[in-house]
C-alpha cells in the first residue's frame, strides 16, 4: 500500500486509526473505501493486507454472492487467515459508500474471537 502522508502525523485519519494498534496482536491497520478500494490512511505494518482494491473487491464479491444466495442483511466482516496472520476486514456502514477497516493481527499474540471483537469495537469508534 501507499503511504499517504508525507509530514504531519496529526492527520485526523491516522490519529483515528492509530488507537487500533493498542490492541494486543494488531500490527497494522488501514481505512479503505469499500467501493473504490482507495486507501484513506494506514498505520503500522500493512504489508500483509495486500492492496486496497483487492480488499474492496474481495469484500464486494462476498457481499454480492451472499445477497445473491439470499442472505439477508449486510456483511459485517470478512476474515482471512494465513499461517502467521489474521486479516480482519470490518465493514463500516455509513450514509454514503461504506468504509472498510482492515487490520493485520499476529496469530501468535491473540486469538481470532478476541481480535474480531476488538477491531469491531474500534471500527465503531472511527465513524460513530
Amino acid at each position, binding site marked *: 500500500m*501507499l503511504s*499517504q*502522508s*508525507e*509530514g*504531519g502525523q496529526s*492527520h*485526523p*485519519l491516522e*490519529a*483515528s*486509526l492509530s488507537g487500533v494498534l493498542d490492541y494486543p496482536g494488531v500490527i497494522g491497520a488501514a*481505512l479503505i*473505501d469499500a*467501493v*473504490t478500494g*482507495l486507501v*484513506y*490512511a494506514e498505520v503500522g505494518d500493512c504489508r500483509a493486507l495486500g492492496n486496497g*482494491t483487492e480488499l474492496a473487491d474481495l469484500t*464486494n464479491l462476498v*457481499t*454480492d454472492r451472499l*445477497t*445473491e444466495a*439470499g442472505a439477508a442483511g*449486510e456483511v459485517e466482516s470478512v476474515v482471512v487467515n494465513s499461517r502467521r496472520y489474521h486479516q480482519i476486514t470490518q465493514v463500516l456502514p*455509513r*450514509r*454514503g*459508500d461504506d*468504509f472498510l477497516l482492515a487490520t493485520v493481527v499476529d496469530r501468535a499474540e491473540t486469538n481470532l474471537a478476541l481480535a474480531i471483537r476488538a477491531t469491531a469495537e474500534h471500527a465503531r469508534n*472511527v*465513524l*460513530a
Partner: protein
Amino acid sequence: MNSPAVAHGPRNVPALLMTLHRERFTGAVVVSGTPGGTLHLRDGLVVAVRTPASPAPDVLLLRSRRIAEPDWIAAGEASRTDGPLADTLVALGLVRAPELSALCLATVFDGAFAMSLGTSAGWQVDDSVPAPDLIAEPGVEPRRLTDETARRMLVLSQLWGPLVDFAATRINPAAQPAVGTLPVRYRDILLGANGRRAPRDLAFALGRGLYPVMLDLARMSARRLVQRDAPAGAGPTPIVAPRDFTTGASAPPPQAPLPRRNPGTHAPDSVPGAPPAEVPGSAGRIPTPPVDIGARPAAPSGDTPPSAPPCVEHDLRDHPAQGEITP
C-alpha cells in the same frame, strides 16, 4: 528550484503537477475544456479538485443526507465567526473528523478521474485562487493521483469498454431486475436511473463519487441489471415521478394543466424590455457565480446539433392547447 512552470511548458496536466510538486506550489491550476475544472494545490500537494464532472464534498454530504440542509446552513453561518467550515462541521457534531477527511480525500481522486474523462483545452496556473472550504489535508502527491487515475481508467475500460461512451451513456434499468436480492447501492442506482441520467448525473443525484458509481454500473451491467446501450436521442422523454433526492419527497402531483400559448401569435406585455439574451456587453450585471466565461474556448464538438425544422406551424394548431386563451 526551477523557474516558473509555465516557462517550461509541461506537455500535459500530470507533467505540470509534477513540476508544481517540485516547486511546492500553493495555488490553483485552472483547466479549461469540456468540462474542465480546477485543481487546488498546497505546498505542491493536491488538496482539492473542483469540476462540473464530479460531486464536491458538500454535494456528497448533502445529497447522501449525511448532513441535513438546515444543519449545513447553520454550519456555514457559524463558520463565518468560528473558523474553518470543516472544524465547524465537526464541532457541531454533524460529521466526524476522520469521515470528513476521508470524504475530502475521495473527492480529490474522483475529481481527477472525472476530469480525465473529458478533454482539456489548456490550463492556467494561478496562485491567487483561494482554496475551497473543504480540502484534503495534507493533500495528495501528484504521482499518486495520476497513477490512481490511470488505474481507474484501466479497470473501467476493461469492465465496460470505451470510457468516453460510458460517460455519455444514459442509464436505463434492465427490464425486470430482481431488486429484492440486490445490495442497497445497486438498488439506489436502479431507482435513480431514468434513461436521462448519465453516470455523472447519477453520481450527483445519489451523492456519490463518479468513479464508484461507474464501477457499480459496470458490475451491474455484467449482471444485466442495467441496459448499457445509449438510447436514441429523439422522442419525448418518459414522464415519471422519481424520488427527489434533495428532500426525499416525491415530485408534486401534476395539477390540472395550465393553458398553453404559442409565442409570437400573442404579444405578451409582462416582460417589459427584456432584451435578447444573446446580446452581450450591456452594462447590466446580474450576480453570477464567479466563472471565467470569456477564457473558455469554444468546445470542439463531435456531433453537430440538429438543425431546427423550418416550421412547426402545424403543431399547436393540430392540437389546440387546453383552455388556450385567444385574444
